[in-house]
């Protein structure tokens, strides 16, 4: 991640601000920066979302494709994540620079979606053992402005929410080859149940306090933190510690509790509310990048 050079005095200032619950930009410790979200802006994809959290800019596209299910899960479809760190985001991503970060995010997403509680993969099954939908989730990081995990997870959830899976009928033939019939109406699609899809919350520990949605400067000041994936029904599906410092078990537990029961749930509900709101908006013209 982009390293920012800070002087000791600046670090001390940030420390004190966190202590007094008044961060440099005026937020409290549990405040998020403003988020701008738009779904369905990539017409070629089955579902897409663009999310801007302060300066972090994420574009997610979901492509659905038919494939054969994995032999050990004949009744389930699957999700595949792919993160691409654009060199536009920071010069360090150039070449293979962003690969490590991309893999890290990718793995974490996979882990947080792996829990059976998050998404019902059997919804994606078309024909047991023969055909299922695979959702390829392509995540493009366009700009890095801190708190990437949260931003990516929210964008992915929104994109999946907007994903339209073509409805397909299985006209079973008496031979062994199944014939799939595609509806000719492009609006005849089904949507995934995204209610329980996890949102990721990053908690940074600065001094004795922890804060959400750290800016890059704040990330610099912290030696450790955790990234927690919280599903819609308030279950924690994945946890990961970041930073070089250590965490006391007591503070780990209290951080998990705080995020799990509080921040994660709130983020989830607000996101769902906003997505629903967007859908009912009258304006059909997409904003995209023309802003």
């Amino acid at each position, binding site marked *: 991640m982009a390293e920012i050079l800070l002087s000791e005095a600046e670090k001390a200032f940030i420390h004190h601000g966190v202590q007094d619950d008044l961060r440099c930009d005026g937020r409290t410790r549990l405040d998020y920066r403003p988020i701008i979200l738009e779904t369905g802006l990539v*017409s*070629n*994809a*089955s579902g897409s979302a663009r999310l801007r959290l302060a300066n972090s800019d994420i574009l997610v596209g979901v492509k*659905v*494709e*038919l494939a054969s299910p994995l032999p050990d899960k004949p009744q389930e479809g699957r999700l595949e994540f792919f993160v691409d760190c654009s060199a536009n985001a920071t010069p360090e991503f150039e070449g293979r620079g962003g690969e490590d970060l991309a893999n890290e995010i990718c793995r974490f997403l996979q882990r947080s979606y792996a829990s059976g509680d998050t998404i019902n993969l059997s919804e994606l099954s078309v024909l047991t053992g023969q*055909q299922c939908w695979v959702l390829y989730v392509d995540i493009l990081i366009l700009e890095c402005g801190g708190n990437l995990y949260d931003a990516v997870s929210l964008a992915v959830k929104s994109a999946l929410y907007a994903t339209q899976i*073509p409805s*397909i009928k299985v*006209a079973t*033939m*008496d*031979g062994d080859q199944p*014939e*799939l*019939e*595609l*509806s*000719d*109406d*492009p*609006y005849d699609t089904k949507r995934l149940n995204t209610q329980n899809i996890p949102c990721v919350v990053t908690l940074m520990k600065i001094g004795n306090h922890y804060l959400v949605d750290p800016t890059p400067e704040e990330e610099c000041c912290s030696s450790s933190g955790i990234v927690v994936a919280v599903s819609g029904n308030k279950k924690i599906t994945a946890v990961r510690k970041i930073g070089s410092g250590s965490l006391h078990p007591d503070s780990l537990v209290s951080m998990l509790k705080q995020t799990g029961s509080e921040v994660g749930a709130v983020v989830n509900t607000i996101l769902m509310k906003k997505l629903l709101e967007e859908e009912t908006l009258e304006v059909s013209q997409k904003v995209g990048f023309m802003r």
Partner: protein
Amino acid sequence: MLTSKVFLRKTKRGKVLKVVREHYLRDDLWCGSELCKKCGQENSDVLDKSPVSSSTLCAFPHYIVIDTNIVLHQIDVLESPAWKNVILLQTVLEETRKRSTNNYKKLREIMATRKDSFYVFVNEHHKDTYVERKPGESANDRNDRAIRKACSWYQTHLEESQKGTDKKKQIKVVLLTQDFKNREQACNEGIPTYKVDEYVKSLKDFPDLQEKLAASHSESNNENREPLYPEHLAPTRIMSGIKSGKLLQGVFHSSRENFLEGTVSVEGQDKSILLQGHASLNRAVDGDVVAVELLPEDKWTSPSGIVLEDQEEQDPGDEIEKEEKLLIDSTKSKDRQPTGKIVGIIRRKWRQYCGILLPSVLPEGTRHLFVPAERKIPKIRIETRQAVTLSSQKIIVAIDSWPRTSRYPLGHFVRALGNIGDKDTENEVLLLEHDVPHHSFPETVLACLPSMPWMITEEEVNRREDLRHLDICSVDPPGCTDIDDALHFRELSPNLYEIGVHIADVSHFVRPDTALDKEAANRGTTVYLVDRRIDMVPELLSSNLCSLRPDQERLAFSVIWQVTADAEIQKTRFTKSVIRSRRAFTYAEAQCNIDDSLQQNELAKSLRGLNKLAKILKKNRMDKGALQLSSPEIRFEVSTETNDPIDVISKPMLDTNSMVEEFMLLANISVADHIFKHFPECAVLRRHPVPPASNFEPFLKAGKTQGFTLDVSSNKALAASLDAAVKPDNVYMNTMLRILATRCMMQAVYFSSGTVAQVDFYHYGLAAPIYTHFTSPIRRYADLLVHRLLAVAVGADVTYTELLNRKCAQQLCNNLNYRHKMSQYAQRSSVALHTHLFFRHRVQDEDAYVLFVRQNALQVLIPKYGLEGSIYLKGNDGDSKLDFVYNPDEPSQTCGNVTIRTFDRVVVQVSLDSKYVQHQKIAVHLVHPKIAGLSVDAIEIPKTDEPRTKKLKGGK
């Protein structure tokens, strides 16, 4: 402005793709009206400023917008000049293209020829008329909405340009559609809308147009009726059925003899599948590609053997008669064959059919039955108000649909050809029916001809071998103007002769890839009708420059052999040459010259030499197993004034006929050998497949009734057993057997040598391992191709790509085979037509022979006219039951003490059955042996009280 169209597509490999196309909307598309001041178009005169309405339905000036279903179902109506100021929306064009390429092509043709009446408005790209598909809306509904949107846009757009004009004189846009829902919604939106039939009927200047309205969608009340036929399966189910082997795909052929029977020939199966009864035939029309389901084996039957014509003389309505009466249960019969039923139609092969209207009890009515000239095609129900005028005319009708509730397919009238019985009309009919291209040659083709006067240049002579010094002559039938072969003979030494066959060098004039070449390739062959010849190449070539006329220098392609006195070939060579024929003999003249020993000139001597050699050649050929088959051939003596036939003569067979034939065969075989050697991949050859044993069944059966065991194991054995099958008391019997044998044969076909294994090159009839056509390039395109190949092989010409491409060659061959077959049918029909004309004013008693004995009929052949007819065994007055006992094993029919078997000689009375003026046919009645109630009296005995003859004599 940019929008995008999104749709989902399934790829062949089963992937689902989301396709997004950019779609730009514009604000500068013209409306095309002369009236409009806003669009800024120049010279737009498609949509008139003040259109005149000839419709009584909407008397106000209007433009017409048509819906897709009109283009799809009423394309023939659109051809009429009645249509003016029509706006064609892009939505309609695109939908048409998607649904029916045929109609789309036709529509484009109409648009091209009538540019001033049809305006294409690109509504899909206009910013005000583009509509996007809404959720839950079907593609069809969306298109309907787009059409309505365009209509209302036009309406407001035109209103703006004619503010201030009188309301009544304002131009409106009228939407024509057959769709009820669309009409309703258009009404709600304030667009004047009508059904196309309403509108067409209201056109007071074009009363005939409504005849052309296709019947299918005039919203008849068919839905409520009980379906008469089982339903067809959906295409996907048919496809899967065929894939899994449950259903079979094949071409449906309806039976000529029994309209309730048909067969489906499935590729890769030697026995075709039999179908019986309305339900099994299930609305298939001859030629359709259908899906068949086989019945369980215990339900298999055999062909019923009865002759059954759909003989309703009156319109039966939509009832299906009891089939039990018509089809006899033969599940117990011995020679059962696979039987099935049609469950779906894969591809319709409907075309336009020639025929006549069935006289109706209610001529003023609109629903009539149409009887196609082709017996294999079912009658067609059409709607017309002109039945009275059309009843005496030959007309063309197209099939539109065949719903389950209708006994007959529904169609519509396309055009009238002319009066029935009119020879020109009938000729036109038979040319159309057999798809013979007979239009006059277009300018582009005539431009390829050499200019007259034409001379052979010195340069050309130098390039060729000069054979002008040879005594060459031609032998042809009398009146022949396209002489394409000539012969010469000369003695080199006492035991060595030189013979030459000289063939007109048509390939010199018809160069590859010219318009002339393409036209000739399409025509494929010259068609000889009784009173007319339809040339393959323009007359200048066929009757003049290529024709090897006497005493004229002509270009030729020569095959020259050196042979011994035993007709053994020592040397063969091929060369392009210049010749001068000394004389054009007719067969009879040549024969005279040979027979008359006083004639000692060079030509007579040559002819004698040729004749001698030909006899040896023929003997050799027969020894190898060549067949001598027979089919009745006759010639009409045509009156010079009326062109009507006045007498019939059988074509005589002279020695000279077979002499010429022999040398032509020899030339063909030599050439075939040579071109195959040089072009093993792309030589154009002709093969005659060995007929499968099953083909011979009726022939063997017939032989058995006469006490002959016929051997059909090889062509040689067949030839021998045919020669042996002679009965002193029935001279014609042998000819009859040969006629039957001819019918067992396969069709000889052209092919490209690269497409067939060499063992299959065999020509069965001629017993030649390889054969082609070389000797008639004026009248056959295949010969022309062979000429080109041979010219390249002997270094006299250059190749071109298509010539050496095996695929191209095969495609050409396929067309030639088709044209060849069709021309034969056309020639046969022409003879039949003239037989008709011949019998128009006469009744004659003639000798006839029984060809087949059927369960309810005798089929007889009258050799004098080459005519075949059926004698129905049901008595003159129709109802009286005759006690005929049918013995299927022999087969024979016995009534009282008279037994009739195959090949029996009978005397029949031939006349023209003119009970209906429109539907004349040759009627054959038995005279001898006498069977009370069936036979009629001989004509020689004057019988005034016989109503039939009276009628005939009176009714001309």
